[in-house]
């Protein structure tokens, strides 16, 4: 791929201003925020189900304007630091997709399934700040959303390559765009000054064994992505289950017995999740 075309596309991706979301969570959050008795915990719980709202909140709180870029990875902490005034303006300024495709709804479900798995796994492994693992899980495919919004003409082409050549969405992205959503995630994380552990989870979830700084984060998100596919919850852009890197299990010191326990726990949680609707 010509270097200038890649630079041009990267520029278009980072120029993203108005990232739309699905209407359901947005409506519920606005209702909740307008109620005088609602708590930060309630609002945080709702926002943690929507990848775009979560990304906006983290982007805002980590912006240099507030004076502590790259420090906040938790939605709850972000809401305490931003306050309800700023949150209200984020909600008001967020638009919804004009056309809501089935694939987009599927991607929202896949991200939520991944987030839920990451949280459960992190708690099971007694990792510190388990919530941050579910945040990284929630945002792991944000690059796909941003690419769809910023490079809309290329989206059908990626889908065509996935269908015709029987390759993964990631491989199709690389063939059509010249880079995958993992790379887009890394650009966005740098541009928005997201904390380094979140960045590592977002940009290394397809190659967790190569993560240098926060290998646990990358491995947990990798397994989260895998599990959401195993349980066939949501749709991430391609059919089937991705290759589970055995190193991820080794790095996290997951024993077969742990894995069984995780599967049991997730079965119940995915059943609950299935009742949830984004439309």
């Amino acid at each position, binding site marked *: 791929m010509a270097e200038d075309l890649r630079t041009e596309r990267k520029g278009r991706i980072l120029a993203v201003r108005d990232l739309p979301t699905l209407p359901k969570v947005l409506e519920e959050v606005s209702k909740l925020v307008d109620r005088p008795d609602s708590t930060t915990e309630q609002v945080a719980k709702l926002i943690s189900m929507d990848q775009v709202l979560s990304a906006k909140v983290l982007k805002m709180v980590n912006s240099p304007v507030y004076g502590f870029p790259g*420090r906040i990875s938790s939605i709850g902490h972000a809401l305490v630091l931003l306050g309800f005034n700023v949150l209200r303006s984020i909600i008001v300024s967020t638009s919804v997709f004009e056309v809501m495709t089935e694939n987009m709804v599927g991607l929202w479900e896949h991200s939520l399934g991944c987030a839920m798995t990451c949280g459960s796994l992190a708690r099971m492994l007694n990792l510190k700040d388990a919530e941050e693992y579910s945040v990284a899980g929630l945002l792991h495919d944000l690059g796909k959303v941003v690419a769809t919004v910023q490079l809309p003409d290329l989206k059908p082409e990626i889908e065509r390559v996935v269908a015709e050549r029987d390759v993964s969405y990631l491989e199709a992205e690389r063939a059509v765009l010249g880079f995958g959503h993992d790379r887009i995630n890394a650009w966005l994380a740098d541009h928005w000054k997201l904390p380094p552990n979140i960045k590592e989870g977002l940009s290394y979830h397809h190659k967790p064994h190569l993560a240098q700084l926060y290998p646990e984060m990358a491995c947990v998100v990798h397994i989260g992505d895998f599990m959401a596919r195993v349980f066939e919850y949501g749709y991430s852009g391609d059919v089937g289950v991705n290759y589970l890197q055995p190193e991820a299990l080794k790095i996290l010191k997951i024993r077969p017995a742990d894995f069984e326990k995780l599967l049991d726990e997730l079965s119940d949680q995915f059943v609950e999740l299935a009742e949830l609707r984004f439309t």
Partner: protein
Amino acid sequence: MAAAPLCAFTRTQKILVLSPDPDLAALFAAAFSSAEAEVSVLARGKGAIEALFIDPPDMLVVDQKLADIPGLDLVAMVKSENVYRQLPVALVMEESQLGTDIDWCAAEVDELLTRPMTAPMLRARITLSLARATRSLDANPLTKLPGNTSIIGRIQDLIDRREDFALAYADLDYFKSFNDKYGFSRGDEVLMMTARIIVNTVRAVGGPKAFVGHVGGDDFVYIMAIDRVEEACRAVVSSFDGIVPHFYDADDRDRGFIQSVDREGNRRAFPLMAISIAVVFNRDGRLKHFGEASQTAMTLKKKAKENPKSCYVLDKRQG
């Protein structure tokens, strides 16, 4: 016309006008009552400078038409002295002369008044200028929260009006060792974070009448209703304890302490930062003076500091 001072000023504002124009003096007389502003008009610029330096006014108005010295030169003389840099200065000139060759980037004036001028316009412009100068002078340069002058003014005002209120003093434990180890800019991050937590919590719990000020360094103050203050303290403590570990490097955070140097120069381990809050109450006009409030708070603060963890202490005698 009003018999009270302007805005929230506790005293009459001194305005010095340097102008040979009797019409301008008459406009000032019409614009402000004597309780609002004490306006002195001097026709000559040179003679005024010494008086100005010894007894600076709250606002200086310079007429471009001064006969003995160009208005902008006089402004430059005043503003080149750092102690007078904060003094708001207005320049008066003919609107028709605005197009002439004036270097506005170099002109250190804060406000421009043009003839023809009316008394209401003069009043609006000068009042805005005075209020703006107080705001920017008193705001903490890091957090932009109101500083000492505003804090003391607010507390004394509530005491004078015999209003019930709770006054909370908050500061950080082990902030100095954090600063020593990680440097000032990392310390500033923590102060910005602390300010956000306090402001958002106090606003959410205490409503619009609540007040937050930044005394300086790691010292903060908030004022709110007596019946809600404990809820706010609890929320500040829990938010601070949840968030502050993220401002440490991962290895220090995992250890739960940092190695730094104490005041005597000895290397020792310091716990992660905590927030201590002391709360004083004013009920039934019991407090007479700001000093009483701050003294009681300092005594309570010592008690809060005995606990190395984040905590708040309420003034039991009245709480």
